[in-house]
């Protein structure tokens, strides 16, 4: 039974992938650049969703603070772009500093002159911050709802800090990237946006492969073990603190990459990335798509956000109701999310309910037991 199921799951995953890749390849020619840019943004959000799936779907850590790492990645990218495009401004520093009378570049901006540093900073800084927060929390055996509250509180701390520091990072106004230059081209220009779309598409697939590699095999099984019965893992000789710190750090790094890609495609990074609702939305994408499926996280992030923009254009103000309804639907009717429902017996049960498919025999287990009865 389980072997057939694995094959079935593989077929589903494969067909989804074919559809996704076909859409990605077709998108730049079909979609107008405005829509393409939106799709690129939502694809970049699917990377942070993959991280949420790793820590929540697999390891059982419900973080409501992924916005911290998302924003950190975005700020790293934006700082680099601002500083490389600041040659015509007073003191050769980004324009906004003049508003607050700052004449000397704050020290932590200096390394962001280097593209190499920035390239690594985008994912390593969020990963390190996540690792540090995670280690302190996990070492003290804080879990469950207390962990969620603590991550949300950290999010608020970061939000308030970034929001209030005009002289360091332009506070609540954030850092604009669309009018900056990258390799002699305007970041907000159509050709650059097309390139960012491709980079995002490739990185989404790479992130999926990476996440798949992390959860396959024994490492992933320990994560599932921690989710289901952490003390048991401990008594078997594993140290859950290290495993949780690693996976939380990985999710932080993915969030950073996601934030950087989102920033260059939306044209700005601001403390709005660290608001409470946005981090909760990330969890909703994964819940709707399907926890512990990876692919569900990607689909959830892209489709929900695309739906959000379409609905908001047609019926402004109604989106919050739809999103709330979607979440309630998932919690009550599809606890495994849409993909989890498809992979489970969901579609067959539905067809049976409408009489479109014959019911399976009531006690298939009897037959199975008879076959194995000789051995017992």
């Amino acid at each position, binding site marked *: 039974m*389980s072997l057939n199921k694995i094959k079935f799951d593989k077929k589903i995953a494969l067909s989804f992938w074919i559809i996704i890749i076909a859409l990605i390849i077709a998108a730049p020619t079909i979609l107008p650049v405005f829509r393409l840019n939106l799709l690129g943004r939502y694809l970049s959000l699917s990377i942070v969703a993959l991280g949420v799936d790793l820590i929540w779907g697999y390891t059982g850590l419900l973080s409501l603070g992924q916005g911290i790492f998302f924003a950190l990645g975005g700020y790293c990218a934006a700082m680099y772009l601002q500083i490389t495009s600041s040659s015509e401004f007073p003191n050769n520093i980004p324009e906004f500093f003049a508003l607050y009378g700052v004449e000397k570049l704050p020290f932590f901006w200096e390394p962001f002159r280097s593209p190499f540093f920035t390239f690594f900073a985008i994912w390593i800084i969020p990963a390190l911050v996540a690792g540090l927060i995670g280690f302190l929390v996990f070492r003290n055996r804080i879990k469950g709802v207390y962990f969620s509250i603590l991550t949300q509180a950290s999010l608020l701390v970061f939000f308030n800090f970034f929001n209030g520091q005009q002289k360091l990072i332009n506070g609540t106004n954030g850092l604009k990237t669309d009018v900056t230059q990258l390799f002699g081209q305007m970041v907000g220009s159509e050709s650059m946006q097309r390139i960012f779309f491709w980079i995002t598409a490739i990185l989404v697939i790479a992130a999926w492969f990476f996440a798949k590699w992390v959860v396959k095999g024994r490492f992933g099984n320990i994560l599932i073990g921690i989710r289901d019965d952490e*003390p*048991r893992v*401990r*008594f078997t000789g*594993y140290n859950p603190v290290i495993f949780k710190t690693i996976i939380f750090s990985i999710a932080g790094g993915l969030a950073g990459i996601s934030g950087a890609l989102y920033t260059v495609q939306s044209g700005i990074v601001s403390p709005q990335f660290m608001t409470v609702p946005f981090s909760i939305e990330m969890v909703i994408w994964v819940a709707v798509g399907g926890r512990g499926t990876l692919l569900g996280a990607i689909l959830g992030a892209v489709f929900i956000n695309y739906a959000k923009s379409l609905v908001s254009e047609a019926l402004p103000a109604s989106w919050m109701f739809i999103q709330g309804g979607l979440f309630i639907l998932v919690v009550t009717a599809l606890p495994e999310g849409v993909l989890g429902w498809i992979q489970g017996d969901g579609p067959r049960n539905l067809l049976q309910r409408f009489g479109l498919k014959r019911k399976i025999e009531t006690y298939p287990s009897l037959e199975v037991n008879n076959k194995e009865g000789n051995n017992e």
Partner: protein
Amino acid sequence: MNNKDLLNLIDITVSFEGFLALNKLNLNLKKGELRAVIGPNGAGKTTFLDVITGKVKPTNGEVIFKGKSLVGRKEHKIARLGVGRKFQSPRIFENLTVKENLEISVTTPKSPLNLINKSIKDEQLNEIDRLMKIVNLAQKVNSKAGSLSHGQKQWLEIAMLVGQKPDLMLVDEPVAGLTDEETDLTADLLKSLSGENTVVVIDHDMEFIRRLDSNVSVLNQGTVLCEGTMETIQKDKKVIDVYLGRPED
């Protein structure tokens, strides 16, 4: 205390806000010994395992295992030193397959790097095969552990315990909810494990304990009431009073 002892519990006291779960408990285990621990509810049997495995820190006293003190060590460190535990109700990873459950137990070293980088060693795979045959789960290799019957779950957990290759096995109520036949098989399995391993079995089931044919320690109110063979303790007046009841029962 002497050199042949694997484990010494010396004057262990555990106090939960004034309530003494264990009260100056002393217990010594020889290497290779099979020991049954019985006692009425609330006698401190599970707390006694919690102290050894590091889940509960004793208020007072010392736990010496292989010459090292276990007090204050983290659970996973104690497990790596060679203390394995089977829980009262079967605690297996229900969302993993039987094989994956066993992989978790036989894998060494138990570090993240080893798990993510390397595939499982051949000798560990052989060990998994051997264990699955011992506990009759060979046909269920790729079934989710959650789909097993209660008895099979108990056995899977015993197999996971053996796979960990601990020097000391602590087995908490291994036959709860098993049929008579399964109970007998479990008793034989545990007997065959002692000798090479040191095994402590906690249970209520007197028939099962008798079948183990081992030394028995009787706990009552957090301390060892009596120790000896089944015959000795059955004649002990104190034990009869607190636990076994009068012969006519």
